[in-house]
């Protein structure tokens, strides 16, 4: 694999060029200029084209200067951040079933126990304490509805 292909700038440039191409292709299906003036395809055509041009510029500058254009990614750090994100996604998926209070308590427990390496007891204490706090502040005091599940 060439050195530039290990750089985030290269792949972000490729992805954004693809997004720009998608925008322009979609915009091509809408009116560019109608009788009353510009149509819905007018603006996306321009910014989509600009996106393609700038992305290709980013890709080209990364290819021409393989030493520059972003830091190397630590897999461990990435795994921790993505693990937290995955836990957050699972928490959201749980909400229609278990409700916010249970899902949040589980998320807090996961972060405290597995991300911070603290004890189960502390994790559960912070999770349950946090849920109670949210219930008291938002549901009771402010009257803001929290996501409800089948039982809570």
């Amino acid at each position, binding site marked *: 694999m060439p050195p530039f292909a290990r750089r985030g700038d290269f792949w972000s440039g490729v992805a954004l060029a693809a997004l720009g191409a998608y925008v322009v292709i979609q915009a091509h299906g809408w009116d560019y200029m109608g009788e009353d003036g510009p149509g819905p395809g007018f603006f*996306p055509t321009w910014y989509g084209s600009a996106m393609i041009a700038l992305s290709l510029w980013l890709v080209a500058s990364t290819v021409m200067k393989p030493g520059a254009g972003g830091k190397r990614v630590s897999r461990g750090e990435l795994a921790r951040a993505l693990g*937290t*994100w995955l836990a957050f996604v699972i928490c*959201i998926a749980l909400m229609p079933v278990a409700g916010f209070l249970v899902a949040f308590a589980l998320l807090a427990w996961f972060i405290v126990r597995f991300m911070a390496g603290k004890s189960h007891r502390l994790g559960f204490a912070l999770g349950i304490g*946090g849920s109670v706090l949210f219930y008291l502040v938002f549901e009771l005091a402010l009257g803001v509805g929290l996501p409800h599940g089948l039982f809570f």
Partner: protein
Amino acid sequence: MEILQGLLQGFQVAMSPTSLVMCCVGVVLGTIIGVLPGLGPSATIAMLLPLTLKLDPTGGMIMLSGIYYGAKYGGSTTSILLNVPGENSSIVTCIDGYQMARRGRAGAALGMAAIASFIAGTFGVVALMLVAPPLARVSLAFSAPEYFALMVLGLTMVVLLAGESLPKALLAMLGGLWIASIGTDLFTATSRFTFGRVELLGGIDFIIVAIGVFAIGEVLGSMEPAQPAAVLPVPRGLRNLMPTWDDMKRCRFAFANGSVLGFLIGCLPGAGSTIASFMSYGVEKAVSRHPEEFGKGAIEGVAAPEGANNAETGGALVPLLTLGIPSSSTTAILLAALVLWGFKPGPLFIQDQPQLFWGLVASMYIGNVLLLVLNLPMVALFAQLLKLPAYAMFPLILGVSVVGVYSNASSQFDLWLLAAFGLVGYIMRKLEFPTAPLVLGLVLGDQMEKALRQSLMMSQGHLSILFRPIPSVLLVLAALLLMVPLFKRFNALRLRVLDEEA
């Protein structure tokens, strides 16, 4: 006379019990989040925005603005005590503030930061009061082409100042424009980029993107280190919080420099408080009789940037309230708040909403006094917040983000979007893409497209309408600003060649 009447009316609004409570809550919250590294005013305002929508708009705006300028006060605390900037705008304060703390003058540095913030913050409010109404009258001459050009200029300045890489900043802004165009086109009812999802027909709410990119992205980034964040040490012995009279005399010019420069830079859409604090520090060092002391604990090196980043707040509200143009990501969220409440920030805003405008101005006077009272004696107490461990803080931020988004429309789909934009925010941080242009592109994109299409409708498709005097000047300015990095690069290259030749 008109200003005095307005101010009197404003104080009547700001002195009402509700407004006072909102002001107190805002400045205390702002100070706390300013002290906490990693949690900025934009994320906090974005998180709290859906909750304030149920409040009276004046009270809500007073609270959100309190968070905005309160965070500027609090941001200096960790810069001075721990060399960790609480806010981006407090980065410069680390240079001399932390050196003062190492020399046992942490109290004087913290006190000076609070006093400079008070003086410059008050100057910013006075200037806002005097400059905003006439500027609003001038801007009444603006119609669709002028607005389009102004928005291009605003976006251009943010793009320039957002990061080191111009293509990345521009790409982030274009990403924001794309998100802004998701949904139904208001001119023709064509659905654009909805991927067949009914939920996307109404577009993507700004709040979801802002909370996702700022708050969730920030948490994900902070979760990276393998070692859990350690409890930060809180220095003891801050008995003497007040700077000496000699310190005050040394900082006379720094107060004036920070106030004026901070306000003027704040008025420019896109400049921001970080630039203001850097510039005032540079000017202070350039005119100082003791430039050699800068970087080693010069008290002027704390007063000037702290003053500038607070005066900038008043300046930033001028384009926001009179032209409807946000000058930073935080003011972009304040703009979104005003729009969500049903207001139209722009030339007619002061005329149409005198209660809100003057109430906000008066509350800022009160807020600045409150902040001085809070910050001088309570600095040591606020520093205790640093003891809150990250593993307790991050789940709370995630929880508040979920509640903030869900309370807006009670939609599970919005929560999925929140998670998606959280990941986008994290990836942008990893790839060093600035997030401010994305948010501003999103906020201004819709209006910019509308203004452009209205302009072209007026001229039956001829671009010549954009070459009227005001739009021409603004577009030329935007083009010149876009070329600044090229000039800088050329100059750096020229200097390097000269160095090598020498």
